[in-house]
């Protein structure tokens, strides 16, 4: 019988965790290329978790972005993060999810054309009236616009929608009061929604 290959001692995923932590630090320090490297790692992990969840409950799954994303990060980091890192962690998490979703939506959009149905671009073959394939792209644009004149509100929306944090958690992360988060959130989402309706055509 063949001898089984020996596993290297220690936690085999340490390397990946270190890499992720390093990339996080670099990204928060302003290194934009770190995000590029981080995205596929996070995305891969997201997919793994989602696949597991889909398999487990097949149809009944209700996707909670919060759970998925936080689980993805925690799996990657696996260590207790200190306060500073925790703030970074959630800020980053929100930013990353948004980024991942937007990139994927763009990719899908060009993908679809790539399937190459004669006589029509895939966009033409929409069969469903409620189709909003680019909804996330419109939202992303609107968020970008919001950030230009009110950065904090854009962060509030990100944290609330893309990592699913509560008002209190958001307040804690952004170091502002509960009431401020609430007001910010109300105004920001109302403006975003009106903006999306305006843009969505």
């Amino acid at each position, binding site marked *: 019988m063949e001898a089984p290959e020996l596993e290297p001692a220690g936690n085999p995923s340490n390397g990946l965790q270190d890499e992720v932590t390093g990339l996080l630090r670099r990204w928060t320090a302003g290194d934009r290329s770190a995000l590029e490297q981080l995205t596929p790692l996070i995305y891969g992990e*997201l*997919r793994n978790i*989602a696949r597991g969840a*889909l398999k487990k409950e*097949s*149809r*009944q*799954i*209700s*996707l909670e*972005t919060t759970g*998925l994303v936080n689980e993805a990060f925690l799996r990657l980091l696996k260590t207790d993060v200190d306060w500073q890192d925790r703030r970074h962690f959630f800020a980053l998490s929100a930013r990353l999810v948004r980024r*991942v*979703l*937007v990139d*994927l*939506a763009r990719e*899908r959009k060009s993908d*679809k054309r790539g*399937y190459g*149905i*004669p*006589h*029509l671009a*895939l966009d*033409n*073959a*929409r*069969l*469903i*009236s*409620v*189709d*909003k*394939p680019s*909804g*996330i792209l*419109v*939202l992303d644009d609107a968020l970008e*616009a919001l950030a*230009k*004149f*009110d950065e904090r509100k854009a962060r509030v*929306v990100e944290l609330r*929608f*893309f990592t699913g944090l509560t008002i209190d958690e958001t307040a804690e992360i952004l170091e502002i009061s509960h009431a401020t988060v609430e*007001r910010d959130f*109300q*105004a920001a*989402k*109302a*403006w*975003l*929604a*009106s903006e*999306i*309706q*305006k843009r*969505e*055509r």
Partner: protein
Amino acid sequence: MDPARWQQLEALFHEARLLDGTERRAFLESQRVDGADVIDQVEAMLEANRQASSEIGGIVDSAVVNALQKLPDRIGPYEIVSQIGAGGFCSVYRARLPEEATQEATQNVAIKVLKRGLTSRDAERRLQQESEILARLHHPNIARLLGHRTSHLGEPYFVLELIDGEPIDRFCDNHRWTIDQRLKLFCQVCSAVDYAHANLVIHRDIKPNNLLVTPDGTPKLLDFGIAKLLLPELSRADPVHTLAGNSWMTPDYASPEQVREEPLTTATDVYSLGVLLYRLLCGRPPYQFHSRSPRAIEDVISNAEPPAPSSHFAGLPSNRERHGEASARDLARCRGTTAPQLRDRLRGDLDSIVLMALSKQADRRYASALQLSQDIERHLRSEPVSARRLTPFYLARKFVRRHAISVGVAVAILATSAAAVVVTTRATLHAEAERSRAERHLAESQQVAELLVEIFEVPDPKIVREGRVTAEEVLDEGARRIATQLQHQPELRASLMAIMGRVYRNLGNNRKSRELLDEALAHRRELHGDADLPVIETQQELARSLLAQGEYEAANELLRTTQSSLQAAGRDETAPYALTLTLLAGARKQMNQLDEAENLAQQALELQRVLLDPADPALIESMSLLAEVLSLKRDFDAAEAKFRETLELRRAHLGDNHPDVATNLGDLTVVLHGQGRFEEAEQAVRETIRIRANLYGDDHWIVGTSYHNLGQLLAAKGQVDEALPWLERSLEISRAQLGQDHPKIAGSLVSLAMLNQRLDRFQEAEALYLRALELHREKLGEQHPSTARNLYQIATLHAAQGRHQKALPLLDRVVATFRASMPHDYRLSHPLLLRGRIFIELGNCAQALPDLRQALELRQNELPEGHESLEEITAELDLCGDSRA
């Protein structure tokens, strides 16, 4: 936006947010701000705020779902080629059946399935309703439904005709179609919409993206995703609003009543057709929305008068062009003309037609899509169009001289068509039940076909590797799929289970047959009343399987239930009732209640002679059952006559090699044997074996029965050595196919034991008798004649070995049993005679006499005078000094 302005906006928003309707308006109006658009924007934010969370949350959620969606490899039997659409809750795929499954290149289809991960009951119901709606629609300009099914993962989906086409507006522009061409194309669209309306379906979402034109120029209406069925009893709770968070209807094509969320009629589709025509003719939407807030949209659509299509080509470059929209020149060029020419072409009839379709009030529009297209056709033929009927100038110009007459005619026509509408609607409603039933059957047969394709694919690689798939394996797979995949179509599932239950019984697998029929019956009881045919038929099938399984009591009980249900429903003079009687007769026959059986079979036959064709299988079944009962009652002549009658009927209608002909011959064998006509009987049984072995193979239990009979016959003819292998073969088959404890096994064991006994192999015979007795007692009970006969045989064995004291108590029991159940039956003579002879042997003539006397009496009824057996008994009575002998 500049931060100061944003702060102002935000402050106003927060203040106004806490106020309600009128207060809010007053507050906003009281604000002195530079530029009305700040107020507009605050209003837009307030409007949007109500649904902002679900709107944005919905976008993020569906982005996550989309991100995690992997293109499935397969759905049901279909291979997924690519994704061609995705909506709030559905994905649409281009798919095809794999070539290896169909042996030929297959057409691509579209498959619409709920998105994985976003399943809600509403969405499922929506999908179900869409397919129900599509199932009603068969029109060359409507994308066809090819089937509605559930995948192996339990996801509902449906299969549609795949349309490779362009949205109608883009198609016309890309091909530079002229106004005339566009109008003719549009009329085809109207015919599709009108057809849907005639079938009581409103589309509610007519727009270019739902109207694809194939390369050969055929328009196809698709996406009935928010369509509505007008029949109140068929339409479900309308889930469109509950999906509002995810859906945002394109406002351009929505009717005023639609944006106001009022009840919708077919007029809403006429309006949307008007918008579509507007766009096709002039290339612009009828309205411009300054804000996309629902209130602003509602306001514009309810109140703004759309400019006439021709006005877009009035000369000066419009605001729109300055805002980067296509120029009038470009639009005209796409229509193969120039702007001034286009303006002239649209002005007049076409402007009127479009604007009439776009009337704010539904009753001012065309009454139907058909009327809209008829007006267009009139325009194309240069006849006056009804849209301009009310314009005095137009009337004066077009038919001033016939004014009075035309009004009279118009009134008459209106009256006639109103009446016609009533009739049509009523006829439609009346025809509805019939049509939907027919369509359901069609859809079901499509599903059955697909299911069969799936079943025959037999995906288990192990079975495929062995290179051999038996019918039973295919069936097992089918049964499994039926149970798991058809949860959403209980009726279809029950039908298929019942069918398969029957097939299993025909294959001799009574246990499986019973399981499936049990389940089918349970499902059908939920769906139907007790006296409804599906329930009755399933009970009858189940009873047959119970009879085949030897569960005679259970069958009897079940059939009694069926009988009472039919009686309670007043359906006791019907063919199903007659069949129930026949089956009951069969159960009673097996329970040896021969008089009841005969009676029931007679009743059934009488009913069937009135109700059915003389060659009807059900009638023949009753007749042949009656014959069988008669033969059991040893009325061989009557039985023979009936069996010959049924044999003739069956041969005439079924041919010489039908299983029923074989059964008939087998029954005749028994009668001929009973009559002592062994040669004829042997001939009949060998013919039975020939037919059955051809049909079922030579190791099927039913052939085994014939082997048994042949063995018995040969034994009766004294060819004991030849008989033994047939009986052994029969027993072997019965054990393998029916199981160790089937009542038929006991019969075989007894026959085999008797043969062994005749060959003086007493030990073998005794062992066989005892095993048979065990079975008889367990399956049929102590009092059953077969059990008694078994005991009698054991007694004969003891007697043959001189063990009289062992034989006598057995014979006492046999005689008691026979006397209780059939005191006048010939067969009682056997134990009596044996007991009498033992008494003689023991020198006890006093006890022997009554037995011998009764035996003689019974046999005298049966046998011709001077028969050897009668002589013998008379001699024995003499020996005992019987005075009467």
